[in-house]
């Protein structure tokens, strides 16, 4: 189980994957908007999306776990 964490505080702009979906390492799982910029958040490992903990519009802090991926 690997965690997809927010690299910085921001607002969830898009969620690009669904629970159950297979993702590749480096694939963009969701995009945060912070300081007038879009910050893509990537999966570090390949696997299946086990959970997505946020929705579009949510404000998240750095290090918050946004999603989990099971290998």
């Amino acid at each position, binding site marked *: 189980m690997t965690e997809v964490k927010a690299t910085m505080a921001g607002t969830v702009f898009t969620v690009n994957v669904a629970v159950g979906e297979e993702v590749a390492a480096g694939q963009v799982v969701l995009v945060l908007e912070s300081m*007038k910029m879009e910050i893509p958040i990537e999966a570090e490992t390949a696997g299946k999306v086990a959970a997505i903990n946020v929705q579009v519009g949510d404000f998240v802090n750095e290090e918050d776990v946004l999603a989990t991926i099971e290998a």
Partner: protein
Amino acid sequence: MHKVLIANRGEIALRIIKTCQRLGIQTVAIHSEADVDMPFVKEADEAFLLGPAQVQQSYLKADDIIDIAVRVGVDAIHPGYGLLSENAEFVRKVQQAGMIFIGPDADTIDKMGDKIGSRVTMQAAGVPVVPGTDEGIATLEEAVQAAVNIGYPIMLKASAGGGGIGMVRCESEQALSQHFESVKTRAKAYFGDDVVFLEKFIANARHIEVQIFGDNQGNVVHLFERNCSVQRRNQKVIEESPSPCLPEETRQRLFQAAVDAAQAVGYKNAGTVEFIVDDNNHIYFLEMNTRLQVEHPVTELVVGYDLVEWQIEVAKGNELPVKNQQAIQSNGHAIEYRIYAEDPVKFMPSPGTIGKLDWGDATGIRIDAGYVEGGKVTPFYDPLIAKVIVHAATRAEAIQQSQVFLAQVDIQGLKTNIPLFTEFLPSEEFGTGDYSTAALPTWLERQKEEKNND
């Protein structure tokens, strides 16, 4: 005008407050919870909390801002740049509440805020525009067809866009297909309007803008040009005046086109007409910004006038402080550096607390800073910490002074883009002065290659 409310934050709020203080005008600040300790809040005569940090719950709450303004009896509202500054609905509400909006008419903002509409208006006024579509593009099929007529590469843009957001360069039909829906989605998300259009991508373009000013008596003057070709992510980071790479004949054509553009829409107050200039010195209207711009200080230093004071004069109904174009002179060379809280290599924002902020010996340097030591740069707002503006007799001297100054600035606690400036300033790209908007990205690529070859 005895009391002004500043509907903005950070460095621009502070900069407007300073001019008001000099003119003996009382100031009212509004702020979010995140900004309670910011210098602009402390510097204003009165300050009011609007709400939580997110701009939708604070700085964009037009009705709340107007309520405060009415309650404390302000004569006028200055919107700064960004936020509500180009929101025509806000302007109308301010005026309906019996106050002055320090800026152009709501109708002018409406007309120029729509990029497609402004293209049409400018063509009618005889101002050359970038080849492109004069209507919104609804479907990918339409986009593909229009792109064939214009010729690749093209820029796919949001009509309501700005600030470098909502535009993508497409080299081919494949790229256009790939980006079409996402640009529409972004346009809707950021600007509440998903209309997109196409423009020809002009290679090696220089981004040159002209500062104009109009009054209620029909006078229009220009205050020379600014070269804003040093950009990252389609956003400016260095601006200078005068432009180091324009034949005099081209400059004069730009000034004339800018004044024509302003007169065509009966422009009042401060505005900027943005152009791109190609390799053959053909000029193309890009857009008009109906506000005071981030980079207005470079103009202030070369012409020697306070543009916020001019804005206030015009807003009061007075004529321009100087109506005679010949009497407005440009002296020396000014360069502005936008100091951002960001990683200088990846250009990623770097929020945090400014543990140390030491500008060192700033003799003769203008610093428009929004923060002091201990200030928190939060993820809710633009990462601009300060603007450093250097003015000297010649461009070479200005660059030399910039290097000396920037090298001794000490900011700790977060990353800033100062290292980018200190490395880029000695580059050939910047040194010759004949650079296009591709200069910074090209230079960065070269740096990467050289590092890889080491």
